[in-house]
């Protein structure tokens, strides 16, 4: 049935945006994490979206195909008194860019809202279609 596919399409997009928001939350939470004894600090993650066909040519959903790790070096701060400082007195923090993450968060939130609104509209249209010829 044609209009019901909207729930699949927008639902897949909402779920993909949720996963994106989840990854952003992980990145922001770990923005100030320092490297452990192994010298490896937290690396920011980013989701990769891909179009997924849903039966008909007019319905195309979204899925998260991959979560990639940023390869950028962690930020180094000179803090000789820090317990995790290396031999030269540098502490390696995570490579998270907090401003970029906030922008990503707003973008994910707006896209999520858009898709929910699409679903609400489709729902009200379907309910009106259900009452066809009754009034």
């Amino acid at each position, binding site marked *: 049935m044609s*209009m019901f596919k909207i729930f699949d*399409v927008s639902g897949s997009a909402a779920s993909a945006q949720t996963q994106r928001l989840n990854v952003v939350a992980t990145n922001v939470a770990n923005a100030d994490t320092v490297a452990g004894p192994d010298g490896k600090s937290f690396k920011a993650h980013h989701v990769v979206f891909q179009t997924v066909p849903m039966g008909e*040519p007019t319905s195309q959903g979204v899925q998260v195909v991959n979560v990639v790790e940023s390869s950028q070096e962690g930020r180094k701060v000179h803090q000789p008194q820090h317990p995790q400082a290396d031999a030269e007195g540098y502490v390696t923090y995570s490579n998270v860019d907090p401003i970029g993450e906030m922008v990503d968060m707003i973008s994910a939130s707006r896209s999520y809202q*858009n898709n929910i609104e*699409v679903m609400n509209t489709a729902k009200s249209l379907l309910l*009106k279609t259900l009452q066809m010829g009754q009034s």
Partner: protein
Amino acid sequence: MQNRLTQALDFQSQALVLRAERQRLIASNIANADTPGYQAREMDFAKALRQATQGAGEGALAVTHPAHQTGQLGATDADGLLYARFSQDSLDRNTVDMDRERASFTDNTVKYEATLRFINGSVRSMLDAMKSANQG
């Protein structure tokens, strides 16, 4: 006689099916607003409705050879959908213009509801015509 009664309904039901299809298409565009490389697509509603209600559209160029052009404006894919012209280039080659999609979505919603009302209206007039004078 029966045919003449349902003729208006046939047209409106075709329009309703196409409106639902366009709604789905715009929902797909909105869903893929953040997908890299996604090309937004649009539907030539007038042409689709003409084709659905009259068979092959009048004035359409006959295609008798695979190399023939269909005489349609804009690039289309195999499903006969148009690729929306993008207003601003984006770095990830995504051509969804959210403002335009939201406007089209609202426009399509209103027109879907209007078509529904037309159908309800013709059903009501038919039922009224069937009633006898003393039925109220």
